């Protein structure tokens, strides 16, 4: 660390870009972006609102724009993102701002529901537990997407979401894809219909910002490509 203080610009307010505040934050070894934001709230301005819970990259609640890039702040070292000695931190893109660094996640989760991103069970408690073959091709596809922590980083990174607010977005669509490949899920038709509408998977331009920025290393872009294939196949089957 070259200097003992970091110049931290925080975008606040509904019109975030026009309400920037600069803070001098003491620099430390092994400091995360979330540590920096917490320092500001604890020692400089207690009115600063932000969100976090686990601090270890599991809960998905701490995502913010860091120098214009969506990131999980609890696992982003400040040394990796410093521009000289400065950093700009703002609320996550593509979601309504509630206050300061806190965005309203409702639209994000509403899209999970709209994409039928819930389990469609067919068994009752009296049935034996369904066995899952971990080596089947479908299970491998599903496993590739199930570690999503719902952080909305991909949703913030996606320009299609920015231009088309109805678009369900990478996280919800990836969730739909994992369900489609889950042997225990019986909602195939419902899922395929849900991802084929106006805001569905066919709006994706496959440019891959979601995959590039997902902090968990997931690949929503390929999941969406899978949805495009499956919806096409099922359409052609229905026509025949």
């Amino acid at each position, binding site marked *: 660390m070259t200097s003992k203080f970091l110049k931290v610009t925080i975008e606040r307010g509904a019109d975030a870009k026009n309400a920037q505040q600069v803070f001098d934050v003491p620099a430390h070894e092994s400091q995360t972006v979330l540590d920096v934001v917490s320092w500001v709230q604890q020692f400089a301005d207690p009115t600063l609102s932000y969100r976090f819970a686990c601090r270890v990259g599991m809960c998905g609640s701490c995502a913010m724009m860091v120098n214009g890039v969506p990131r999980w702040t609890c696992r982003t070292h400040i040394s990796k993102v410093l521009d000289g000695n400065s950093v700009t931190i703002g609320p996550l893109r593509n979601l309504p701002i509630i206050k300061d660094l806190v965005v309203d996640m409702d639209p994000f989760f509403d899209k999970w529901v709209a994409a039928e991103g819930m389990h469609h069970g067919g068994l009752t408690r009296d049935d034996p537990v369904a066995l899952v073959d971990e080596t089947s091709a479908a299970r491998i596809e599903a496993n590739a997407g199930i570690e999503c922590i719902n952080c909305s980083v991909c949703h913030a990174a996606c320009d299609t979401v920015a231009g*088309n607010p109805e678009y369900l977005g990478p996280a919800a669509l990836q969730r739909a894809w994992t369900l489609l490949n889950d042997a225990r899920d019986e909602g195939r038709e419902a899922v395929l219909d849900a991802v084929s509408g106006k805001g569905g998977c*066919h709006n994706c331009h496959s440019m891959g910002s979601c995959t590039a920025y997902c902090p968990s290393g997931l690949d929503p872009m390929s999941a969406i490509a899978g949805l495009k294939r499956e919806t096409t196949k099922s359409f052609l089957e229905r026509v025949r």
Partner: protein
Amino acid sequence: MLSLRLYLLQRITALLMAPLVLGHLAVIVYATQGGLSAAEILGRTHGSVPWLLFYGTFVFAVSIHAAIGVRAIVHEWAGLKGVVLEVVMWATGFGLFALGARAVWAVTFA
């Protein structure tokens, strides 16, 4: 703003266009390298059903493909939606088809 149907139409027309574009490029190279005059070219295309079909299909596919592409662009970049969006898409499609069909007709049967 692209549903499954529009997406499929755009992919199918892309598939159609791929060989047609190659054919079109080959024709351009052949006609210019071979030093064919406009009159010679017209002499070959006039009254030719194969050329009418080749370029007619091309124009048809382009009109559909481009109209759907323009729809996505004006929705995402200009915020058009609802009836306006539909009108822009159909106008683009019909406009391109009218221009293209007129040219194809002119070199084959007019």
